[in-house]
């Protein structure tokens, strides 16, 4: 399973979202997910199972498959919820999944 954070240059904000996704996965004890980051230009369909972008890029990622849009890329609580939901949706083993 691969989660990919994407921004326009693939350097700053996508890297931060990438590190925060890893942090959230670790917090929740979710394993078996690879996380990476990339720029908009080099991402094609099939580049990852799920793509995470900020709301400002939502219009630019059509056709890239399963996209999760973050309303604010600095809101860790939102990321926590969305990563957890996505992991459950994709059938990744999530500890205490029933408790959510």
């Amino acid at each position, binding site marked *: 399973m691969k989660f990919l954070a994407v*921004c*326009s*240059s*693939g*350097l*700053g*904000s996508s*890297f*931060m979202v990438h*590190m*925060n996704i890893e*942090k959230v996965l670790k917090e929740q004890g979710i394993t078996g997910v690879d996380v990476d*980051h*990339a*720029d*908009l*230009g*080099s991402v094609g369909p099939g580049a990852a199972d799920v793509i995470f972008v*900020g*709301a*400002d*890029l939502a*219009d*630019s990622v059509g056709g890239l498959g399963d996209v999760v849009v973050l*309303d*604010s*890329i*600095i*809101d*860790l*609580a*939102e990321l926590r919820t969305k990563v957890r939901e996505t992991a459950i949706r994709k059938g990744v083993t999530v500890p205490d999944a029933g408790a959510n």
Partner: protein
Amino acid sequence: MEGVLSVLLDVFRQPAIIVALISLVGLLLQRKAFSDVLKGTVRTLVGFLVLAAGAGVVVASLDPFGAMFQEAFNVQGVVPNNEAIVGQVLLDYGSAAALIFFFGFIVNVLLAATTHFKYIYLSGHVAFYMAAMIAVILGVAGFPVWGVVLWGALLQGLVTTLSPAIVQPFMRKVTGSNDVALGHTGGAGVALSGLVATLTRGKGTPSKSTEDITFPKGLGFLRDTTVIVALSMAVIYVIVALFAGSAFVETELSDGQNYIVYVVMQAATFSAGVFVILAGVRVVLAEIVPAFKGISERLVKNAIPALDVPITFTFAPNAVLIGFLASFVGGIVGMSVMIFAGTAIVIPGVVAHFMTGAASGVIGNAAGGRRGAVLGAFANGLAITFLPLFLLPVLGDIGLSNSTFSDSDYGVVGILFGQISLAGGQIAVIVAILASLVLVYASSLFVRARARRAGGGDGGDGAGDAPTDADGTRVGETASAR
């Protein structure tokens, strides 16, 4: 014995190896497994070589541009693009730049831990570019390599601590909190935008927010760096080629190939080179930035992460576009002035105007509504056109290249310390760096004393106010979560 020494010296003269070693340290600090350490170190070594290869591609496409520009207008034409210039700089200053980047982060953490400026600069790519520029400035000043690294690291630490600080009074207006800061080399221009917006706000009814306007969508393609660089460069190359004339291009440069086809392909090649450099930078930073983040979270209480410009974009999407357009117009106006003044000509760099112009728009809007967004971003556009012009002469041979650093902080820091070096030599540079350090501690003490006098009351203004307690939802809380 001498043989061994010379081999060792050869090893450490390779910037790729220095960068790989820094990555190795980063991986060990993160206590990664052996296989991850090996993988990450080798990837960084290769990543640096990818970056260097991209620099070659960019230079090959810029050379004909420079020749055409010279033929057409008889002056130097400069394309401000961070990746293009940093790729070239790293070929000569790579080892010093990598070490300044590494030790500069440590200085940043120490300053954040011991002063009121709690900003940890996590935008590794622009920090790396800043380190490259500082390596050039101090190298041109004639410092020995150890001096470049020592003084460069102190300067780098100061810049990465203070750049977020000058934007923070305005960032607080945007985010409504003190949990995140802006960490980008456009900081000075963005702060200028906030200042201009505040000054032009007017006393009567405040200018309405940009977000009350219904604004056309469909400019999403602006966000794809590869596409926008190729398109904008194609426009610029074709215009310059038309002025240079088909005869010149086809006899001197393209070896008979149709001149329009030739320049369009060169523009696309430029974008390809930037693409390759970006890929290299991404690999080089992949192991080291997480290590930095981990260290700062452990060592600095109430750390405020300073992050890349797109963190501002979701707060005011209309201001993003308005800011880009206003900044770009500023760039065109600035370029026109240069044409009449007969100086080297700085062509508006679309990526820089987008990134820093957009952030200036968001900041300007928060400080002064629509009018603030337009005027503030316009001021930023002028700043990032004229600063590169005055930066060129202090960069030595690098200033003769057809590309340069595009954002405001490079201009402010480079021109300041370049001129200090021209005026007073190495001693003046050292004195200026030490004086800046003293000033940082003095202003930190002052802010702390003022905060105490106010009984801990938090007005929310002023660059160094005590960080408010994190509410547990923002990235800023990472420090307290450990």
